[in-house]
């Protein structure tokens, strides 16, 4: 049974016309699951999370936690804990008091509070800081206190709103792994909001992609990467982003960089009757071939060496306009800027086709 369920849940901020920050969200999150809500800034991630927390009204539809409908329930009765982007630590309380505050409000006996706070502090390496005020902590330590405050409660759901966005890059990667490991260990259902698709892909059991308040797709990271449901997801997930252009189509092939790229058999049926399709190919699905072999012509503009491999960025002719393409190649023997490459598909099947106007995926 789902631990958390959004049923056509909508938040419309009153204005003319109302802003549907979250629009008919249908989403089920399983018990113990780590679900990541990802999307660009302003896509409604925080609003969706705050609706679940009870901090934001649900204007249409409903939300349940466990078997209880919590649509109109105040936050304190929802048995959830939340980690805020700003951490929102109580400035006048010590680390220990911050972590024990929720238990204290519930009149938990003092020795129990002390024990639970100590356990959480050990888990998060905060033992020696328990008597400090938040202002005397580093950013990483504050972040851990915010985590600790959530853990101590032993809630049925963790909510996290971009908890890593105030950390520097190195600490972010480290903390990312720690949070994921901690969640597996505790087994608490978790909903994690981020705008960073790398975080989403590395942390989530499943990832829900939001855009403009509308759920685009929810799937396991691999599935999202391999089978994006529409052109938005295709362009958003993956780094560097998928090469995605609307190209002229002849049904069995498309014209790209002066080269006819043959479409997979399944796609041919779907593309029939369209004289244009949105054609997507990931940077690693392309391969440069020697000049005498035929391929998609690309004029190299820039090479980014990443060590093991390199990103070759250049322009490709699409219906007369120069479009930017990225190719991932072996780190050795990369071409220089100004050269021309011929590109072919590594695997004939590894293309993504979307409807030119609706953006929906054309083949399953």
């Amino acid at each position: 049974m789902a631990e958390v369920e959004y049923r056509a849940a909508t938040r419309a901020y009153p204005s003319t016309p109302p802003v549907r920050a979250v629009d008919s969200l249908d989403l089920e999150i399983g018990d113990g699951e780590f679900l990541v809500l990802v999307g660009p800034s302003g896509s409604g991630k925080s609003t969706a999370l705050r609706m679940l927390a009870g901090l934001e009204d649900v204007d249409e539809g409903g939300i349940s936690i466990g078997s209880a409908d919590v649509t109109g329930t105040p936050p304190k009765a929802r048995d959830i804990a939340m980690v805020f982007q700003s951490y929102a630590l109580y400035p006048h309380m010590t680390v220990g008091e911050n972590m024990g505050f929720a238990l204290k409000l519930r009149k938990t006996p003092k020795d129990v509070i002390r024990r639970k706070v100590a356990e959480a502090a050990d888990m998060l390496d905060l033992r020696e800081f328990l008597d400090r005020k938040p202002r005397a902590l580093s950013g990483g330590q504050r972040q851990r206190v915010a985590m600790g405050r959530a853990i101590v409660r032993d809630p049925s759901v963790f909510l996290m709103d971009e908890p890593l966005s105030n950390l520097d890059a190195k600490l972010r990667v480290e903390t990312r792994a720690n949070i994921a490991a901690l969640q597996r260990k505790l087994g608490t259902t978790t909903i994690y909001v981020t705008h960073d698709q790398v975080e989403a892909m590395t942390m989530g059991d499943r990832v829900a992609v939001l855009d403009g308040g509308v759920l685009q797709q929810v799937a396991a990271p691999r599935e999202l990467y391999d089978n994006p449901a529409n052109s938005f997801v295709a362009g958003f997930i993956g780094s560097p982003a998928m090469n995605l252009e609307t190209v002229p189509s002849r049904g069995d092939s498309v014209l790209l960089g002066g080269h006819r790229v043959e479409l997979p058999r399944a796609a041919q049926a779907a593309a029939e009757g369209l004289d244009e399709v949105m054609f997507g190919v990931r940077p690693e699905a392309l391969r440069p071939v020697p000049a005498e072999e035929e391929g998609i012509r690309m004029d190299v503009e820039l090479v980014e060496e990443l060590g093991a491999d390199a990103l070759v960025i250049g322009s490709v002719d699409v219906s007369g306009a120069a479009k930017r393409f990225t190719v991932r190649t072996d780190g050795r023997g990369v071409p220089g800027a100004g050269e021309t490459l011929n590109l072919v598909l590594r695997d004939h099947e590894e293309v993504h086709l979307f409807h030119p106007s609706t953006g929906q995926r054309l083949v399953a």
Partner: protein
Amino acid sequence: MREPRWFQWVRGVGLCLLTLFTVIPLYVMVTTSVKPLSDVQDTFQWLPSALTLEPYVDMWSTVRLADYFVNSAVVSLGAAAFSVLIALFAAYAISRYRFRGRDAFRFTVLSTQMFPGILFLLPLYLIYATVGQATGIVLQGSHIGLIITYLTFSLPFSIWMLVSYFDSIPVDLDEAAYIDGAGPVQTLWRVVIPAAKPGIAAVSIYAFMTAWGETLFASIMTDSDSTTLAIGLRDYSTQSTVYWNEVMSASLVVSIPVVLGFLALQRYLVQGLTAGAVK
């Protein structure tokens, strides 16, 4: 860039004059308070002919200074306490909730500051008299009447000051408290108020001082049982003599609570004034 010499001179002289201007009254006050009565009855003398602490002893018996002290303390502490209490709730509501009439209320509160106090003297007196006739509650001349009077002075500013202070406290803190299981009152009490201590300290001092030094309303709204210090100091001038030395010693002693209050709360005050400067 070096300043020209004449500018340094002008500045030096200007600052000296300014310093004298503030120091001389203080000097007169302190020296007069240790002069024997004979020194202060005729022409003014810069130096005491003899030093004595008698004014500090006699001032308590010449007039009922102790009673006035108690009256002032009751009225000022009462006004400050109610001011802070009411302003806390009002400011929290304005800062955190969006309700109908919120902006109108804010503006009304502010606009009361634009009128000189004397405009309210007569209406307030009439209201007190009417209330007294109708209910038997005596407001003129009583502590409670004076407390209410001073509340009307200090509340608007206190509310404004606390609203801006609360606005500088992130709403995330309130929300974290809600999620931790606190209701609105617990959130205000255990999270927002502790975080707003500097602002609350500033408001308390302001409300206290407004009441402590007020003379206009005190001179009309008190009777012989409720006379406050600021009014009571006049009693040192009798038909025959003005006990200037005792006036000065009493004035010094009267300032002590305000100075002490300031010292006790100054670290909050400085924080309060710089609130929001650093995120």
